C-alpha cells in the first residue's frame, strides 16, 4: 500500500468518525468540531487519492486550500450564530422539542 493511499484511507476513517459525531452529538459546538473533522477527512481523501503517478499533484492541493478557507468561513459563521443563539436562549443544542419558536412569523 502506497503512502498516499494510506492517508486516503485515514481520510475515509476520519469521514466516518466525523459523520458519526455530526449525526449523534447534540451540542452545537461539538457538531461543529465533527464537521471540521469530516472536512479534514474529505480533504485527505481528495489529496491522498489524487497523488498517484509521479510527484505531488498541485491541483488537489489548491482545491484543498480553497476548501480550508471555505470551511473556516462556514465555521466562523456557525460560531457567530451559535454564540448569539446561546446569548438569547441559553441553549447549546437545537433539539428542544417543538416549542412555539418554529412558527413565530414576522412582525
Amino acid at each position, binding site marked *: 500500500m502506497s503512502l498516499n493511499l494510506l492517508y486516503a484511507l485515514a481520510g475515509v476513517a476520519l469521514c466516518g468518525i466525523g459523520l458519526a459525531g455530526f449525526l449523534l452529538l447534540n451540542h452545537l459546538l461539538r457538531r461543529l468540531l465533527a464537521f471540521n473533522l469530516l472536512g479534514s477527512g474529505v480533504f*485527505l481523501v481528495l489529496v491522498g487519492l489524487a*497523488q498517484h503517478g509521479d510527484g505531488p499533484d498541485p491541483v488537489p492541493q489548491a482545491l484543498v486550500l480553497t476548501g480550508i478557507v471555505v470551511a473556516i468561513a462556514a465555521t466562523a459563521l456557525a*460560531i457567530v450564530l451559535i454564540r448569539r443563539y446561546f446569548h438569547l436562549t441559553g441553549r447549546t443544542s437545537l433539539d428542544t422539542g417543538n416549542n412555539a419558536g418554529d412558527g413565530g412569523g414576522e412582525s
Partner: protein
Amino acid sequence: MSGWLDGLLVVSLLVTAVAVLLSRDLFRAVVMFMAFGLLMALAWVRLQAQDIALAEVAIGAGLTGVLLLDAVSHFRRARPQHRSRGTE
C-alpha cells in the same frame, strides 16, 4: 521509507479525532482539536503538500481553535446565569 512512522501518525490522527468527539469537557475537546490540526499538518507534509500544511497550522488549528476556545470560554462564563434563568 519509515512506514511505521506514517502508521503511527495515522493512528494518532484517528485517536485524536475520536478524543475530540468523546471528551466530556468542551474545553478539552477544543484543545484536542487543535492537536488534531497539528497532526494534520504533519500528514500534509508527508503528502508533500507544504502549502496545505502551512494553511492547516495557521487556519485549521490556529484560528479555528482560537475562535472555538473563545466561544467555549464565553459559554462557561455565562452558564450559571442562564441556568437560573432556564427554569422558566
